[in-house]
């Protein structure tokens, strides 16, 4: 029925599904949750928490796909098309500031998060209502990490009450509204007037610079301060990851990708050296889902595609036998484990960074497309 069935709708699964549909493949996505991706910062690293560049990364973990640069370019183009254009490059590593004020190295960053220069005046802005970002803590850490900088901090009110703890994404939605933005800008200006400090070169906010209207929010704050502004992503979920997730999902749905949500993959029919179908489950209902090719983007340990038991790893989706690294021992010829589903040795501690997600997903779709063009298209002809 489908050319390609993708298991998982995290970053890895969604990206692969979009590429597959763009190549004209009839594509399904099966998932039992939005994935751990929503909790990431929205920044794309080679390896999260590891300040390496491509060379050190590929030395440590082996070659990542046949043409990593092409995959990254495809992603940059895609984010431009969906309206949240990422920047950065495959070769170059940049410093960004996190919600705790530490600097981290990353490769690709969304338009609301900017690389940080190593000198200048920084102003860290927090909000009374947003308790999971403390500007004093962030400013203190940033000052320590960046001795050439002059860091100050400021806290103002958003002027809106919440009946639940105000998360950064709640605040981002408030700042979608022009009225709220203008009120915040006015109180920031008033607070700065009393201060007699030098004008900032960069203003650092928590990740709340608008949700849908991030472009207007960034623009308004930059105009108000006359300098660059950036988000410092903190506790999940982050507005950066959420913006991208929503836009990519919309893109996939508009492309006609079929979503099977609330659905667990629980076993597979293996015929010879091929996956014939997946066993899919919604509650007590169990069915088979057929496709020509299968991409496992189940997120490894974090994404619950692998569980670490006393007897070693178990692969939860197709329930194939895995080795001590969680890598499927005999990979059927039409199955493509991508992202962290490829096994914990592919990345550090089994946590794949965004770049590995892109590169391995791109590669899988490339191989599938080549096979389909090469005439290996049994499902297409109904056989």
């Amino acid at each position: 029925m489908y050319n390609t069935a993708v298991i998982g709708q995290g970053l890895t699964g969604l990206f692969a599904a979009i590429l597959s549909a763009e190549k004209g493949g009839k594509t399904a996505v099966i998932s039992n949750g939005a994935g751990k991706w929503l909790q990431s910062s929205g920044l794309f690293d080679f390896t999260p928490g590891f300040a390496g560049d491509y060379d050190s990364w590929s030395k440590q973990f082996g070659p990542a796909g046949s043409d990593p640069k092409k995959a990254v370019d495809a992603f940059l183009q895609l984010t431009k098309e969906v309206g949240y254009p990422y920047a950065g490059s495959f070769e170059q590593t940049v410093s960004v500031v996190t919600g705790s004020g530490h600097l981290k190295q990353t490769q690709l960053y969304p338009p609301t998060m900017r690389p940080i220069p190593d000198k200048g005046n920084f102003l860290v802005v927090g909000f009374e209502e947003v308790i999971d970002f403390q500007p004093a803590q962030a400013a203190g850490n940033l000052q320590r990490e960046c001795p050439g900088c002059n860091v100050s901090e400021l806290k103002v009110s958003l002027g809106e009450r919440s009946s639940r703890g105000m998360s950064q994404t709640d605040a981002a939605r408030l700042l979608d509204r022009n009225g709220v933005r203008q009120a915040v800008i006015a109180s920031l200006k008033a607070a700065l007037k009393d201060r007699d400090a030098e004008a900032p070169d960069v203003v650092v906010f928590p990740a709340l610079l608008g949700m849908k209207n991030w472009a207007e929010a960034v623009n308004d704050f930059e105009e108000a301060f006359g300098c660059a502004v950036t988000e410092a992503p903190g506790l999940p979920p982050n507005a950066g990851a959420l913006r991208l997730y929503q836009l990519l999902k919309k893109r996939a749905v508009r492309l006609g990708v079929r979503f099977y949500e609330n659905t667990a993959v629980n076993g597979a029919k293996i015929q010879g050296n091929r996956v014939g179908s997946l066993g899919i489950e919604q509650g007590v209902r169990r069915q088979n889902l057929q496709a020509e090719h299968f991409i496992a983007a189940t997120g490894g340990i974090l994404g619950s595609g692998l569980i670490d038991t006393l007897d070693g790893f178990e692969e939860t989706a197709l329930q194939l036998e895995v080795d001590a690294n969680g890598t499927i021992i005999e990979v059927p010829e039409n199955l493509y484990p991508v992202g962290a589903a490829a096994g914990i040795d592919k990345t550090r501690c089994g946590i794949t960074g965004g770049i590995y997600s892109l590169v391995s997903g791109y590669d899988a779709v490339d191989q599938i497309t080549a096979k389909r063009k090469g005439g290996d298209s049994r499902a297409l002809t109904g056989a």
Partner: protein
Amino acid sequence: MHLQGLNDLDYNSCLKCNACTVSCPVSNVTLDFGGPKHLGPELARLTEQQEPIDDKRIELCTLCGTCDAVCPEGVPVSSLTANVKALHAEENGTKFRDFVLSHAEYVGKIASAFAPATNLTMKIKPARKVMQWVMGMHADRQFPVYRFNNFKRRYTKKTAETKRKVAYFTGCYATYNQPDIGDAFVNVMKHNGIDVAVPKQKCCGVPMFANGRMKEGKKNAAYNVDSLLAYVRDGYDVVVTCSSCSLSFKKEYLHYLNSAEAEELAQHVYDANEYLRFLKEKDELNEDFGAIGQRAGYFSPCHMKGQGIGNPAMDMLELIPGYEIRDLAADCCGQCGTFGFKEEKYPYSMKMGESMKEAVNELDAEITVTECGMCKTQLDQLTEKKTMHPIEVLAKAYETV
């Protein structure tokens, strides 16, 4: 806990990551709602060893189930919030208005018996003002029309004689408001050589669950399970045209009734297009569709997304020659069953509807296709496009030569 044991619900795997709350269509438009994380797993965890806490903010939960679909840990969030709704209704009593709204079936029976008068009254502004004042229904809300010639009057067949036999669960909307959907369904089945029987049935219970009237909802659920299961055991397939009714059989009944019978029924229930797709997979579908040159946008109801069956409506409509259909990729419509009728919920409902309206305008198709009668109510109010049920389009395609 009074109504539902909470201990069988696995909220302990909640990591408080907030994925549910940032995806919740209500939380996204207002900070007045406590959000699914707090009113679901957090509250359950907090009250496990103590008296339950009645939290008024639960009134804003619509039971759309978006939280369930995004939770990375498999927590049944909306089952937890449904329990909190039931507790709240029990502690506070239900407003007369909510009692009326949750009894779509009684209202349907009475309103359709006096249909011309009902429809006229619902259209007159002063009468709607009175409704707002007396009943708390918002005066600006457009109500679905009621038909005197309802589906129960039109179609009374109780058994089927063909090889494949369908037991049709009509649901309140196709029975009282838009019996044309029922006619279209029977026609589509006829084109496939399948007889349709309409078993005895009561409202599926979804409006009751949504208004916290858990006991009554369960009563209806038990009645429907009994009635439909007899047909299943007689070799019928149960087919449903309303996405909320079908979801209740597949998901909610299992949780609320927790019985082997509910489980057995769940295995044999199909959404109407899911059933046609099943026939196609078995090579039994009549694909003799006449051409319809039309560009349509598909609006997916939350209760359809929640079923985890892909997009059967589009799978079918794409078979019609000349028919161009694309998914609007829209969020929740904001009507949410009975939610959008209520005076105090109306402003939230309108805000939620904005992104749906944007999606409809952005795609700019000629018509909108959706399975849900309540989503149609909101689409009719907020957009200029005509809205049809996919089965009506298919019936038209069979009749076009």
